[in-house]
């Protein structure tokens, strides 16, 4: 279990690094585009690339946001329960979320395959779309594993109490 959590943690940190790099690149490419456009030399590939960088940054951020508890929820009622009750509720909602995003990951993979077979590319410089959608699918898969780790922890808590 410890080895699993450790491996998961390093994967999440790696994704976070990729996401942050994509974010900084988005900023730099956009600024360069604005600047060069001022001199009548717009960067043709800027808009397409920034779009894909955004996809990458957001997808890579999902497991990290999940483990950091970055999402907003309504915890008024749950906080009034016993620690055991809280762990049980969290384990149940975690399992539901896991199944949900498992389905999303699977559908995203199918969507990517569909676009790959059609050979869909971006508007201006014809970058293939499919690899990025595959990446989103993989990130949703890793999100599922991150949620699973939380579920296991909560089940452990519920049994212990």
């Amino acid at each position, binding site marked *: 279990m410890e080895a699993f959590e450790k491996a998961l943690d390093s994967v999440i940190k790696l994704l*976070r690094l990729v*996401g*942050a790099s994509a*974010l*900084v690149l*988005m*900023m*730099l490419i*956009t*600024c360069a*585009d*604005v600047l060069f456009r*001022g001199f009548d030399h717009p960067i043709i590939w800027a*808009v397409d690339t*920034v*779009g*894909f960088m*955004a*996809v990458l*940054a*957001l*997808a*890579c*951020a*999902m497991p*990290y*946001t999940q483990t*950091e508890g*970055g*999402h*907003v*929820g*309504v*915890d*008024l*009622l*749950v906080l009034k329960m016993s620690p055991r009750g809280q762990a049980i*509720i*969290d384990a*149940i*909602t975690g399992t*539901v*979320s896991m199944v*949900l995003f498992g*389905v*999303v990951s699977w*559908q*995203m993979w*199918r*969507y990517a395959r569909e676009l790959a077979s059609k050979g869909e590319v971006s508007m201006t410089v014809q970058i293939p779309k499919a690899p*990025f*959608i595959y990446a*989103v699918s993989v990130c949703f898969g890793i999100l599922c594993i991150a949620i699973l780790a939380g579920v296991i922890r909560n089940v452990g808590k519920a049994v212990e109490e």
Partner: protein
Amino acid sequence: MSPTYIGILGIILLVAVFFTRMPVAYVMTLVGFLGFSYIISLKAGLNLMARDIYDVYSSYGLTVIPMFVLMGQLAFNAGIGRKLYDCAYAFLGNIRGGLAMATVAACCAFGTVSGSSPGTAATFAVVGLPEMKRYGYGNKLASGAVASGGGIGMLMPPSVVMIVYGILTEQSIGKLFVAGILPAIYISVLFMVAIAVYAWYSPNEGPAGEKATWRARFRSLTKLADTLVIFGIVMGGLFIGWFTPGEAGAVGAFGVLMTALAARTLTWQGFVKSCYETLRTSCMILLLVAGAVIFGHFLAVTRIPFELANWVAGLNLPHWAIICMIIFVYLVGGCFIDALALIMLTIPVFYPVVSNLGYDPIWFGVIIVLVTQMGVITPPVGINVYVVSGIDKSIPLEDIFIGCLPFLFALILGTLLLVFFPETVTWLPNKMY
């Protein structure tokens, strides 16, 4: 079962599942998917979910959000808040309650580089709160001013709430931004009046500080320079049409980064932290948007928004009464759900109602931000209050909520005035666009 009936069941299920503390974004995705699949078909539901999420992630319009969040994060970690506070302090510090007023003024100024209200509140919980405590300010006034003043950060452009509203309702983000400027200044003034009244009744809560010389005051104005330049470039460039809102965000973030590097106020750790925080916040917001889009598609096939709009139009109530009812819904709902989540959830329902009544969508955008501002300081889930208490643990949560009350009244009053005089909001954007 008629689609409308299924829609109502869906909304009930949604609210019920919210209370399990499952992330709001996940719940909207789940219920939206289930409902859509039930009404149309499972295959359609599965297709819809993947496509909606990818469309949101890859939408060029939404790249605005990470860029403006990054700009605010960099400004926070580079200590821009400190400079703005010093300047406001030099001018207002010597009057009763003046330090709290300086906090509000600095929040308004910081709003020009930050689009988020918890971000602004966090900045001044670090910068303004210790200063007020040093001068013997009461916990309630000091923390209330920081938590409430933080809300101005999202009214003053850039504003994450306005971007989300603009995208969900297909309104011009530039126009929304311009519309926020005057109300932000006006709400800041109302807040200062609230502080003056408060300090008048309980002088011990907000004693006067030292008086700065005029020389020192003028010198402090130079500290505003870089913020003003960045704001001028971002808003000016957006308005003249040099760049799109997304580009404005990138240019602003780069501008803040450059000024911080030149002044040597941003460390490498600060930079990395800004990037990671931006990832987290942007991911949270965009998954909410994706959830809202999926849920919105479900609502659209149930026809609830249209039925509701028609029903309200048939009520024969004066328009202002309907707007007040909507504001009331937000005020109550904002107590339970995170303000941004509430907006995304309700915009598909309320927006058709409001535009059906003939109101200006830009004006409604500003009203939405104002009610969100109320949501971030009302118990039990006022995010700004939690941000302030997270930074200064010595102040009890109840004290901060009580401290926010005068500001809440000022906000309600201010919002009502804007409801009855909508021209105050629409005048500037109509003049400029």
